[in-house]
């Protein structure tokens, strides 16, 4: 065989010789002779000789939608239709040109060989691993037929259930809920596994959940990071904390775990889990006794301060506070007094702290502490938890009417959700809501009609919900499980049909944060790979097939363009809030909401219009009007198990990428050396961690970052590993959540386990 490698390479690498080669190719008639296949002859060669020199990048605006405080504004660089790299947008002072390790791996995520590529159907039963490729039309026709058959047999579509949560917070993705609304009254897994107890708490206290702009923290004089670890999970917030610290502010981390944020703080206070509320009450008492409270603000802006003070006087004994929280009294006093003296001072409460049976009451106690110190409604102050104040979109994709004659559930209030609420006139019927935090149990128990079809979107049920064994049983009982996702995960394993979903780079969308104040457009930067479709395109296709089978059975538009869908989400209110005239301005970069200090005007959305220490609503709903000490769940096993987020993943997202696998390839149980010694466990030993729920085998790492009596296991999912910490978590509820989000949260961190060396 002889061929000239040099000759070919010179053609390939040299623009001029390549042009003449291509011209010759066109002239020689080769192209008309091609037999044809997936590749076609380039008929336009004469006019469009490819430019082989350096091509410039095209840039696009994107936004990270993965449920992270930071919701980064991203600038995407594309060459010849291929994403090359991304960077954080420099226009956003929050993102400030950087992304986290997860965001920086986006190119690898989009082009991961593990992406779901085609719609597929599992033949031979759920979990059999026997998959057939199906067309989108076949997939949608199958689902549509099933839905219509159910409607005919049951007289309603309540047998169709939707579970969707936070893997994609793009606003148009509420089109998934919209799709379910557009077929009739259905069953929804309602509530949130994330932050409901705190949402209720802040709403009881302040009538809203609205945190100050995190960028203000740079000017705070005292920052308490209370059960939050931004050094891992909100990396962009750290620069404001560092700046404040550099300017002399004190940064205190209160956490049962010595976290990355704790390592960066001025002081770390290790608190006994679930006693944070008591510490806050003790601190408030000390502040009031030292006369450092803001009486003027309290008089003008609060309700029930007197009752609250009386409660502190009578019920809160500082010696007890010290004993129960495990913090020396002198340290508590010092903390309370220096916090009260520093102005402005702020507390950032994490979502971990409210994942206890007394979580809502702890957030209420901390809100009260910040109020007592006079830091609510102040620049660089505030009791920070989260906000939805910049989420005033139209929810056009969500808002669909029911088909005529739809029959639903009677006598129950409409579905709630923390981001967008179903609206419209009061109907005779409603959807049926089941508690998302008890998915397996609730689906199994739902009767008349029983649930027969489950649609999973933006969510990995098996990684994030509880009681895996019951989930498997439940999934196997269902007639049809549809999982729409970007990757094959454990939920997809138990599906009948998997639908490949677009990433944010393959669709238009818009996004804001529940933490900072920036708004980002998400442009389609590349063509959708393989056969992936966006959630709203899937909804439209389902609508087309339902209407083909039975006219009028689905009201969702039958064809959509993600760009048009995105534009429909904007309104004058959004433009006004962000100081822009049109969404098109967002192509130039993200914009920030006009500066506002929540509650600076002293107006609260509570029934009294004031900050409510004493809440009638709280009394009515939860039997306790005041922020008060509620004991945490009693141990039912030897060790407390806590399962925070790791920095390498967002729940189960990102962990399957090689970068993350390189750095954090397998799960561990982190054990305090004293506990390990007592159980004769050494570093690297495989141990069984078990409780009444289940058992996991993992390697041990010994560290006094976790206190004695507690073990830590990250909540994430690992590729090719059956580890799932939720096998050990029961679905016990936290105290609050049902008020605003429709269902209480889960007391994740009130899980107890034992372990032994294997």
């Amino acid at each position, binding site marked *: 065989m002889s061929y000239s490698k040099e000759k070919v390479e010179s053609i390939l690498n040299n623009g001029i010789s390549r042009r003449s080669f291509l011209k010759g190719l066109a002239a020689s008639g080769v192209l008309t002779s091609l037999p044809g296949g997936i590749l076609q002859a380039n008929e336009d060669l004469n006019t469009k000789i490819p430019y082989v020199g350096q091509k410039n990048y095209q840039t696009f605006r994107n936004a990270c939608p993965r449920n992270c405080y930071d919701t980064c504004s991203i600038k995407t660089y594309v060459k010849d239709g291929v994403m090359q790299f991304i960077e954080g947008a420099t226009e956003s002072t929050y993102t400030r040109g950087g992304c986290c390790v997860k965001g920086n791996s986006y190119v*690898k995520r989009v082009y991961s060989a593990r992406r779901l590529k085609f719609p597929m159907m599992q033949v031979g039963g759920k979990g059999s691993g026997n998959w057939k490729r199906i067309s989108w039309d076949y997939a949608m026709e199958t689902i549509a037929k099933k839905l219509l058959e159910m409607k005919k047999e049951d007289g309603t579509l309540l047998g169709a259930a939707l579970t969707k949560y936070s893997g994609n917070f793009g606003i148009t993705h509420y089109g998934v809920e919209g799709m379910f609304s557009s077929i009739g009254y259905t069953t929804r897994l309602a509530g949130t596994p994330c932050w409901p107890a705190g949402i209720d708490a802040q709403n009881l206290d302040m009538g809203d959940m609205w945190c100050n702009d995190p960028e203000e923290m740079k000017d705070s004089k005292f920052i308490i990071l209370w059960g939050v670890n931004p050094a891992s999970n909100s990396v962009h917030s750290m620069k404001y904390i560092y700046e404040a610290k550099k300017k002399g502010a004190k940064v205190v981390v209160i956490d049962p775990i010595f976290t990355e944020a704790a390592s960066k703080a001025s002081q770390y206070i290790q608190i006994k889990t679930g006693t944070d509320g008591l510490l806050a009450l003790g601190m408030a008492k000390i502040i009031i006794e030292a006369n450092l409270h803001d009486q003027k603000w309290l008089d003008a802006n609060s309700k029930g301060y007197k009752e609250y003070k009386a409660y502190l006087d009578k019920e809160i004994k500082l010696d007890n506070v010290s004993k129960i929280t495990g913090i020396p009294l002198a340290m508590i006093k010092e903390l309370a007094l220096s916090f009260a003296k520093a102005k402005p001072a702020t507390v950032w409460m994490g979502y971990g702290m409210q994942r206890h049976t007394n979580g809502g009451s702890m957030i209420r106690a901390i809100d009260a502490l910040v109020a007592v110190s006079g830091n609510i409604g102040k620049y660089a102050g505030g009791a920070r938890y989260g906000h939805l104040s910049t989420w005033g979109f139209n929810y056009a994709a969500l808002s669909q009417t029911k088909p005529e004659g739809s029959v639903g559930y009677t006598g129950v209030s409409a579905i709630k959700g923390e981001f967008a609420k179903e609206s419209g006139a009061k109907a005779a019927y409603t959807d049926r809501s089941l508690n998302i935090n008890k998915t397996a149990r609730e689906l199994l128990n739902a009767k008349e009609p029983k649930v027969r079809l489950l649609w999973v979107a933006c969510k990995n049920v098996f990684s994030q919900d509880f009681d895996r064994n019951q989930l498997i049983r439940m999934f196997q009982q269902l007639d049809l499980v549809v999982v729409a996702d970007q990757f094959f995960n454990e939920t997809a394993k138990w599906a009948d049909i998997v639908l490949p979903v677009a990433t944010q780079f393959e669709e238009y969308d818009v996004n804001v944060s529940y933490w900072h104040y920036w708004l980002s457009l998400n442009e389609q930067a590349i063509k959708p790979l393989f056969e992936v479709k966006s959630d709203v395109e899937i909804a439209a296709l389902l609508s087309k097939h339902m209407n083909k089978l039975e006219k009028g059975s689905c009201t969702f538009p039958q064809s959509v363009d993600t760009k048009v869908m995105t534009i429909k989400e904007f309104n004058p209110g959004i433009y006004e809030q962000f100081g822009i005239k049109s969404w098109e301005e967002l192509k130039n970069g993200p914009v920030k909401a006009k500066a506002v200090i929540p509650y600076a005007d002293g107006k609260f959305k509570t029934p009294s219009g004031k900050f409510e220490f004493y809440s009638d609503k709280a009394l009515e709903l939860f039997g306790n009007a005041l922020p008060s000490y509620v004991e945490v769940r009693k141990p039912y096993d030897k060790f407390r198990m806590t399962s925070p987020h790791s920095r390498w993943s967002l729940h189960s997202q990102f962990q399957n990428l090689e970068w993350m696998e390189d750095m954090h390839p397998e799960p561990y149980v982190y054990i305090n050396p004293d506990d390990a010694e007592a159980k004769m466990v050494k570093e690297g030993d495989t141990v069984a961690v078990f409780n009444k729920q289940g058992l996991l085998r993992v390697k041990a790492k010994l560290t006094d970052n976790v206190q004695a009596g507690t073990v830590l296991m990250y909540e994430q999912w690992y590729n090719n590993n059956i580890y799932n910490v939720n096998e050990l978590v029961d679905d016990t509820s936290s105290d609050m959540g049902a008020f605003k989000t429709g269902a209480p949260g889960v007391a994740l961190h009130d899980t107890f386990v034992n372990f032994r060396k294997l």
Partner: protein
Amino acid sequence: MQTLQPHDTLRLDEVKHLRDIFNAQNSKELKVAFDALNASIEISQEDLEIQFNRYFVGPMETVADPFASVYLDNPDVFMSKTTLYVRDLYETMGFTYSLKNVIPEDHLGVELDAYYQLLFLEIAKEITYLSDLRHYFLHEHLALWIPRFLERGLAQSERDSKAMTFILLQLKSLLIRETTTTRSS
């Protein structure tokens, strides 16, 4: 046009059938292409597809991803350097690709198509203009990654699918034959 010698027809057909296997969109297309390879293996259309998907398509982690970049650039990622290099080669060969940026150019089915078309020009149409490119593509690209792909596919423990083993061995013999065959002209 010359009358094709039987061995030339065979040579062309084999590339074509293998191409069609890897480009099949459904079980019917797959079975037609598979049967055309004269396999003596009896397998139902459905089983063939299930096994094919487990090996090469997904949705679960595959036995061997059929993308060159996975073997030459990064085991987890496609649409990387190699894909763009192959894209360049196709342009130079005078091909356009309607699935550009949808299915990476270095997918085995697309590469076998390019190879088939170039070979067809040489053998059936007696156009040797692109022969250098075909050899270059074969020796400097296909021969670099397909052996690794085959190795991964054939290493599947206990070689649990006769049909897939057959496809892989056919591909192997094709590669051996093509890389040891002298130029057509």
